[in-house]
């Protein structure tokens, strides 16, 4: 049919196409309808996946959170009991508040620090430095290393006696703590380790810096603006969309920190590194308290959404979109 039929100049295009379409679907479709049909066909896998792997499981999880469910027994409806237990301040029955505190501590220190350090490195490596590409690669490399390998490596580095960190500190006469084994130092240790990966944000900031039109700086220089004013009034506003992106993805990602704590501390000492997701994992897959863990998951979903929406809302006040770029959707 259509395949063998070349579009000849003599035949009106319309007629030829209609004939082909008639053969395709058994009835006549306009070009737009055909496009619509094909579009939905292409999107279909995602819709199926969404129902099977996201929406369906989410509803199921909501139901589970209202039950006493384990892998072994069928779920028993208990209403809001799980949520009530979760919020209790009794640390024996619920580590909810503790893990929420630990995770917040980690997220709200490591993410801003990562942004500041990543941005500073990006500023340095955006200059005319000899071997710029090599430096950029070096700073970015830690971001590629598999999480488990990174975790094991840093257990070794943080060791009180034979760890590199304390041996370096000893050179300047400081006796280092036992890091991962001390309640006071375990969380800071995890944050120090996370900074090793600041090359991730750096790369994104480099992209953002490259996008600033040079003319802006030239114009400001002509007007006699010094270093700091140029940085404050041109660089910062122009990279604010990038800061926004790094902040959102960083916060969502850090809230879900798991591998480090699972491999390095198992939540210890004295639950000081028991992160929310690790706690959830233990409840679900070691104690098999699926219902309770589902309630925990739903509260987490709400918390993460809350922060995401908060940042999105606040962005109008501090994220600068150049007209024309922002409307490019």
């Amino acid at each position, binding site marked *: 049919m259509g395949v063998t039929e070349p579009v000849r100049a003599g035949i009106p295009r319309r007629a030829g196409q209609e004939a082909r379409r008639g053969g395709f679907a058994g009835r006549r479709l306009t070009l737009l309808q055909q496009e619509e049909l094909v579009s939905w066909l292409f999107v279909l896998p995602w819709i199926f996946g969404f129902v099977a*792997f996201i929406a369906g499981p989410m509803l199921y999880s909501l139901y589970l959170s209202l039950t006493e469910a384990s892998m072994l027994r069928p779920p028993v409806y208990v209403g809001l009991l799980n949520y009530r237990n979760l919020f209790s301040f009794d640390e024996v029955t619920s580590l909810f508040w503790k893990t929420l505190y630990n995770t917040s501590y980690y997220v709200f220190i490591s993410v801003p620090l990562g942004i500041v350090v990543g941005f500073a490195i990006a500023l340095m490596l955006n200059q005319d430095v000899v071997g710029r590409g090599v430096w950029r690669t070096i700073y970015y490399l830690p971001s*590629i290393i598999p999480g488990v390998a990174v975790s094991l490596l840093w257990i070794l580095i943080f060791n009180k006696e034979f760890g590199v960190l304390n041996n370096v500190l000893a050179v300047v006469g400081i006796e280092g703590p036992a890091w991962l084994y001390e309640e006071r130092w375990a969380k800071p240790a995890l944050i120090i380790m996370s900074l090793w990966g600041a090359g991730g944000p750096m790369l994104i900031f480099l992209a953002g*810096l490259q996008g600033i039109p040079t003319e802006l700086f030239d114009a400001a220089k002509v007007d006699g603006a010094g270093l700091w004013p140029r940085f404050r009034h041109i660089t910062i506003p122009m990279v604010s969309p990038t800061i926004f992106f790094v902040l959102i993805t960083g916060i969502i990602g850090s809230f879900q920190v798991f591998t480090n704590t699972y491999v390095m501390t198992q939540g210890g000492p004295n639950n000081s590194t028991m992160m929310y997701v690790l706690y959830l994992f233990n409840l679900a897959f070691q104690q098999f308290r699926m219902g309770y863990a589902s309630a925990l998951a739903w509260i987490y979903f709400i918390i993460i959404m809350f922060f995401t929406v908060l940042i999105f809302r606040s962005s109008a006040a501090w994220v600068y979109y150049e007209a024309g770029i922002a409307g490019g959707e």
Partner: protein
Amino acid sequence: MASVSVAASRRTSWKATTLVGKAVLYLIIITGAVVIMFPFYWMVTTSLKPPDEVVTYPIKWAPSRLVWANYPRAITSLPVSVLVFLKNSIVLSTLVMVGTVISSAVVAYPFARLRFRGRRPLFFLILATMMIPGQVTMIPLFIIFSKLRWVNTFLPLIVPAYFGEAYYIFLLRQFFATIPREMDDAAKIDGCGPFGLFFRIIAPLARPALGVTAIFSFSGMWNAFMGPLIYLNKMEKFPLALGLRAFQAGPGSRAIRWESMMAVSVLMTVPVLVLFFIAQRSYIQGIVITGVKG
């Protein structure tokens, strides 16, 4: 005037212009680079140290001799060979990569090039799924997969990849949208339908973006820990990430064998590094694409 300032300030807000400024700048960059590289150095040298030099005080900054035998010993020291983990990792990552690239490209295409009702809300829904923490679906999915008897197989880790993933759909749509419209028109005049357009025009032109998706998804699965931890409990099925963990608590290793663990860490890291260096250009470009949109 103009030529001077353009030459002097290529896209930078501030400049180390004085000699002292330059010196300080290089000092900071080099110090930072040394600090960044040191853990790598430590990983490699520890993997090559004689066992009695690994855990010593004061520490040995460099091995007295290079013990290459640490590697074969690490590979065979668990009940299951590390090569089995390696094979599992390759199988898993490859299958996930293939599925992610194909399905995400297929789903992204109409959002970039075709018009259909519900396009905007549907795309918004896809973006919104990126914000759902995996923990919400983790438990029900585990129950579903265990009822399907998929636990201890690779299926729970592979099958979902064949239905498109929001992050890559977004990335690919951004890229597809940059391909000039004239291409479509020319193809349409030649009698190309939407299918042909996708397979003959868009997909080949988007090879860099598809490459980025392939690399990201491959290394994503290669490094994945939590998923395999949940679904796999037979050691013969472990990918490297889980196998590596087995050295910590595994049978047959009463004391932690740091040199073995670091040797396997190196083995696990090298493929990702090679991949990174081969694909550096498109890799970074991909990050730029995702980063710019904000």
